[in-house]
């Protein structure tokens, strides 16, 4: 595990803090600068553009937003799978940009990704036993200890009949079973931090519930700090006590999930909550408070990125980027709350 040896940058006590993102940005170059300039738009996609938040130990936080909002990129940044363009990410108090060598191996053990598509996450040529042994092997766990750890991990994710499935290949298993294996593989090195990227979006409803229950159960039992990336607020609500809503590379609202669901502050969060259908016929058909789709990520609006779809936008929204504003337990990035 990465030591807490490095002092926190601002000298404050952050022992309770597992992850701290400070002004994190990730820009991607798409296509040619020349052609983009000729067409009057930028060749830069600002997938993540100035995101800050901290994760406390044991916290489970949903990263919520629609496609292209930067939630998946943010997850990859937190795991040091891609380097940030600017800003910093601290893990256990240490800037992940400086982690290398043996520390990097330790970091990779401590911080794990749970993949979205269980059908693609496992090597089809390896048996389940081999797939699960691989991370142990890489971490230098002695052969004699491996089987015990594999069995433990399978028990943890409540995989049915573990003895039988060990010699199976991925194609012999259902999506739900595979996703349990994917989770077992991420948990086998006993990480302290996991990022789950839409882990149930490929699964059928009747199976999904089982995986979500395992996720809830596991993070409680292991005291994991977790990020759950999803576009589905109902799922996030089920597994995360806190939700960070993103829009076009920025955070728009951050706070307790129940509060976001029942009384969203940011106009975008409000639209998201209104748009989610619920499984009973007496639901509200309240008109959506916004119209249109998300603008081109290469040419986001000035000021607040949501302003061209926002029913409450006023002059200031076009000229000034909203700063974080504390509203009770929540942080909201909107000029409406700046009194």
């Amino acid at each position, binding site marked *: 595990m990465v030591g807490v040896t490095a002092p926190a940058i601002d000298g404050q006590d952050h022992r309770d803090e597992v992850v701290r993102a400070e002004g994190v940005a990730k820009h991607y170059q798409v296509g040619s600068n020349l052609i983009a300039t000729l067409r009057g738009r930028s060749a830069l996609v600002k997938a993540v553009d100035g995101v800050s938040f901290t994760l406390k130990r044991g916290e489970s936080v949903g990263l919520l937003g629609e496609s292209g909002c930067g939630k998946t990129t943010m997850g990859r940044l937190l795991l040091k799978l891609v380097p940030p363009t600017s800003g910093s990410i601290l893990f256990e108090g240490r800037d992940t940009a400086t982690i290398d060598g043996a520390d990097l191996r330790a970091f990779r053990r401590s911080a794990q990704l749970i993949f979205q598509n269980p059908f693609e996450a496992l090597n089809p040529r390896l048996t389940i036993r081999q797939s699960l042994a691989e991370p142990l092997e890489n971490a230098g766990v002695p052969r004699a200890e491996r089987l015990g750890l594999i069995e433990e991990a399978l028990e943890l994710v409540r995989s049915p009949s573990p003895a039988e499935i060990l010699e199976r290949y991925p194609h012999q298993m259902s999506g739900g079973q595979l996703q349990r294996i994917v989770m077992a593989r991420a948990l086998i090195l006993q990480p302290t931090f996991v990022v789950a990227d839409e882990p149930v979006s490929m699964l059928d409803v*009747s199976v999904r519930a089982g995986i979500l229950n395992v996720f809830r159960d596991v993070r409680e039992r292991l005291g994991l700090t977790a990020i759950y990336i999803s576009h589905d607020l109902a799922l996030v609500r089920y597994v995360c006590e806190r939700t960070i809503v993103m829009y076009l590379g920025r955070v728009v609202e951050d706070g307790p999930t129940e509060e976001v669901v029942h009384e969203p502050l940011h106009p975008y969060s409000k639209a998201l909550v209104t748009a989610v259908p619920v499984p009973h016929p007496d639901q509200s058909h309240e008109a959506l408070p916004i119209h249109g789709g998300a603008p081109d990520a290469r040419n986001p609006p000035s000021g607040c990125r949501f302003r061209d779809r926002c029913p409450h936008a006023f002059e200031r929204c076009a000229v000034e980027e909203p700063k974080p504003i504390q509203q009770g337990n929540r942080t909201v990035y909107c000029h409406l709350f700046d009194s």
Partner: protein
Amino acid sequence: MTAPLLSIRDLSVSYVVGNGMVHAVDGATFDVPAAGIVGLVGESGCGKSTIARALTRVVPKNARFAGGEIFFDGTDLLKLSEGEMNRLRWGDIAFIPQSAMNSLDPVYRIETQLGEVLRQRGGLSKAEAREKSEALFELVGIEPRRLRDFPHQFSGGMRQRVAIALALALDPKLIIADEPVTALDVIVQRQILDQLQALQQRLGISVILVTHDISVVAYVCDRIVVMYAGQVVESGDTRTVLTAPYHPYTMGLYNAFPDLQSSQGILTPIEGSPPDLSAPPSGCRFAPRCPFVEPECRATEMVLHEVEIVDGPAGHVSACRRNGDAEMLRAKASEVATWSA
């Protein structure tokens, strides 16, 4: 009750796979009323998409119609010649695919593609086709000047609107939409569903909405047809089916679904997986996963029975042997312990 627009009776469709047959749809029966939205719901492999395609008789090469009838406006579609069927396709029965990109040709402007349908199939002149194209775009909420655009210039949601405009081109009586909003973000999904519902009501047409999402059905559909392992297990008025289901699979599906608006406790999975449809089990196909299974369930073939609802809308059917115990089963189904293996 007026005669339904579409009546599917005991429909069976199989796929030839290797040396065997996969019985994707096995004896499906349900009606689609004139001017209504019917949600065809179920999980992957339940046969819902096969039914959607079977209705237009555009099926993969290895598909075989193994029996049954599809009455559309009184005519059995399965008895029509290919030429007669061709006239109905798009004309009376239109299709909206999951990804509109698949139904649009990337190298032609929308204008050209829509114009071709209107002129070749609708018999309109060039000027009439142009006028109608603009009217169709306005109908689905796209600026008519965008008719000049190519498919890739539209966003996912806009493309889905184009697909709806295309489907409406020849004034169909029935639109079959196969997971039309599945690939879309939640806000766009809502916009498309609102649009589809508004058009359905305004034009008085019928829609079959194929989806895996019961909340989408709850949002827009008048009636619901629940499928499991190739068979219809329950169907009826959406409100009564979702609030008082008779089939344990419907109950299980509902309990497994997250609900944003209620203070829900724990989500309950249905343990196990659907059966292999190349060799389906005898008796009730849900029996291996059903918490209320009795020995007779495995021996008795499933039959849809009208359930008795006092003062409720008619036409609620369920294929559970234990329909009579539904009230008790519903109470038990809401307990998590019932579903843990």
